């Protein structure tokens, strides 16, 4: 008897129609897949991507070498050397972030008293050689210079929540 029921079901292709119903439902439903890289997901202004160092509008670098980011970094990815600049101000002579160590927790940005080190929305970067992802101070400042507009907008958008 059981054999006969099974035979009847398979002849009527019942299983197939069941499957096709699911397929058909999704065929007409709204698509959620993003066609990266042609399409991109929307980002929060709090997105934590590649780091950058900012300057003040007059061109002076913001970083005052307080070393709080170095101290707070849980991955020990930041290395800072300090010296007194000719004008007597406290400045970094070396500011490196090893992005292969970084876990993008955002603590450095959080701890920075002058909003110098920030995490931008950029996540599309790569390195071809060992050491390419070791970002030095000029590289970080260059990132800051390039994306300052976006960075400033994001900080402004987040300001009321901080």
């Amino acid at each position, binding site marked *: 008897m059981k054999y006969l029921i099974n035979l009847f079901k398979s002849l009527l292709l019942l299983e197939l129609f069941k499957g096709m119903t699911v397929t058909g439902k999704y065929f007409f439903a709204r698509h959620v897949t993003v066609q990266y890289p042609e399409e991109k997901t929307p980002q929060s202004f709090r997105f934590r991507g590649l780091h950058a160092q900012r300057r003040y509008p007059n061109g002076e670098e913001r970083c*005052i070498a307080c070393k709080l980011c170095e101290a707070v970094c849980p991955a020990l990815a930041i290395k800072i050397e300090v010296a007194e600049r000719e004008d007597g101000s406290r400045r970094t002579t070396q500011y490196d972030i090893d992005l292969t160590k970084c876990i993008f927790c955002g603590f450095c940005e959080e701890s920075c008293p002058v909003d110098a080190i920030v995490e931008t929305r950029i996540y599309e970067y790569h390195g071809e050689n060992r050491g390419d992802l070791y970002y030095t101070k000029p590289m970080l400042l260059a990132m800051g210079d390039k994306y300052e507009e976006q960075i400033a907008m994001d900080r402004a958008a987040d300001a009321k929540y901080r």
Partner: protein
Amino acid sequence: MINIEIDGKQIQTENGATIIEAAHQAGIAIPHFCYHKKLSIAANCRMCLVQVEKAPKPLPACATPVTEGMKVFTHSEQAVKAQQGVMEFLLVNHPLDCPICDQGGECMLQDMSVGYGGGHSRYHEEKRMVLAKDLGPLVSAEEMSRCINCTRCVRFGQEIAGQMELGQAFRGEHAEVMSFVSGTVNSELSGNMIDLCPVGALTSKPFRYKARSWELSRRRSVSAHDSLGSNLAVQTKNNRVLRVLPVENEDINECWLSDKDRFAYEGLNSAERLTRPMIKRDGQWQEVEWQAALEYAGNGLRHIANGAGAEQIGALATANSTLEELYLLQKLVRGIGSQNVDFRLRQSDFSADGKQQGAPWLGMSIADIGKADRFLIVGSFLRKDHPLLAARIRQAVKKGAQASIIHSVDDDLLMKVAHKTIVAPDALVDVLTQVSKALTAEKQGQSGSGEAAAIAKSLAGGERVTVLLGNFAQQHPQAAQLQALAQQIAALSNGKFGFLGEAANGVGGYLAQATPGANGLNASAMLATPRKAYLLLNVEAELDCANPQQAIAAMQAADLVVAMSAYKHHATDYADVLLPIAPFTETSGTFVSAEGRVQSFKGAVKPLGEARPAWKVLRVLGNLLKVEGFDQDTSEAVRDEALKGTDVAARLNNAIGGVEVKAIAAANGLQRVSEVPIYATDAVVRRSAPLQATADAAIPQAWLHSDELKKLGVQAGAMVKVSQGQGSVQLVAATDDKLPRGVARVAAGHAATAALGAMFGTITVERA
């Protein structure tokens, strides 16, 4: 004893104690800035306000004495409100830029504001600004706006350092701490103001912006400079010493540190550091491997021992070397068959050898010095040679002790001196003899007149008399007689006597037996009758020896000079092998301080380059020369061997017998009086750039009484030619009318005077 209650805790405390002292005894913290246990009470920061039962207003805990049955509340609503109010006012004018402040992370104000400060500032007006001050090369006052006017630095200068170099000028909002008419701070204890400053107003200039407090590793160490044996915390980062701070030890340095101990570390990484072994071949220096250098040295020594005889080998070390190094050095030299080893390079009278019952030492503990009520200080540049001992004596004098001075110069000791006798060096023995005689007479009830009698009277009136012989007395050509007389005077006044001690390991050298044996030559004889080979440990012959002319001549005449040194220096002129050794921060070792305290320490950082601890170098050299007993694995093993089975305290004894006291014929012409300037005492200090920039490290001048200058027809400030022996130098003439006539004060141990002869003796000064 009084019973009080703090925060519900019953406490018994001494009558006359303040609330903050009682609270600290009981382990209850009361916030404070201006209060410091070693300084007088100012009560001007008001941070320590506490509530006291029955008092209508909060009271400052630092200035309120306890009374029987007092009930104190440190965390009641009234107390906390008062403390928060004070904190808010302190922060009104304090810049809120901790991230760029050097004190950030170790700041009392920062810590307290976490506990008592508000989350945000209600003050939006302009802040007070105070201009930066230049206080010299050691203390940075770049950020005087941060000052909260606690006046700790001012009180330190007045009370501990003995001179008020900083003061608070103006009133109210305009009050600021400044030096007197834009002067610098020249005290030899000035670095302590940095520690005392609760905020970032006074910070260390050499350390400025070098590192954050949380990045530094902290290692315990012992000072390698003066004979006090101050306890240090050496702070390092990336295998480099970045700062030195005191470790509190009430029996030694209390909570202070002299500038020499604090800033000498800047010399550790000097460009002059020797980092690879070097050999001179055909007049050219070559860097070689350790193996080659050690074999060269070993073969050379063996060759001379087998050829000219072992007694042609002499070993000299400074008293800044560790116990282990000195022990292995003497063991090595004795193993080769020579008895010529010595560490007392600046001593000129060795007649006490064999007559002395033990190692000369302070004769008492350092803490006892603070308790003495009569001092007789003979031949000591006290403030410069022993800054912290001088501070201790200063405190004792403040409490009523009387200090008498017998010396050849009359430098300001910044304390009340009861009596002083300033005579030429050759009259020192005579003066002490007179004091001794006057003391005998005094005991028989016959008071004499004159300075000697006055000193005797002062000593006779004391209960705890202390006779101290300074470096000048120890280096004096009649040192043994001075010692015998000091012993006599101490015995007559039922007191103690001792040596202040020249260097960190002056006592350790004796314990390590780094003194010549029965047939051996002492430091002076070894240079007077030149040897064929010299083994030098930490020695810069022209700066560390009593007679630089003689030392250099002996070195240049020698066939082989093996110099173990941390620095490349003038040894390159006369040495044949340079072996790079590690200074005290890079090696483990032991120093025995003047009071006989044995203090071992470990290295704080790794040796620079290929430098190695000297005890290891000596050990290998011993193996190469096939001397037995050179198989210690650790410096502790060497130390235990050196001090094996001996009670250190039992080996310390200043007693001396069989010394004939006789006056020497008055010298013709000028007599030289020479001190080793405070920042020229040893190799590390000489290379510390900040110390060398201080006023104390200025180029030596020829100091004479103005009558003597008139005789020469020279104006003060003019150049004079100073000659002694075969050498002469050009120095600036200066007058000091406190000097006795017939004396020229020309410092030793400095490159500018290294061409001159012995530290004592006649010297010629003429128009240049």
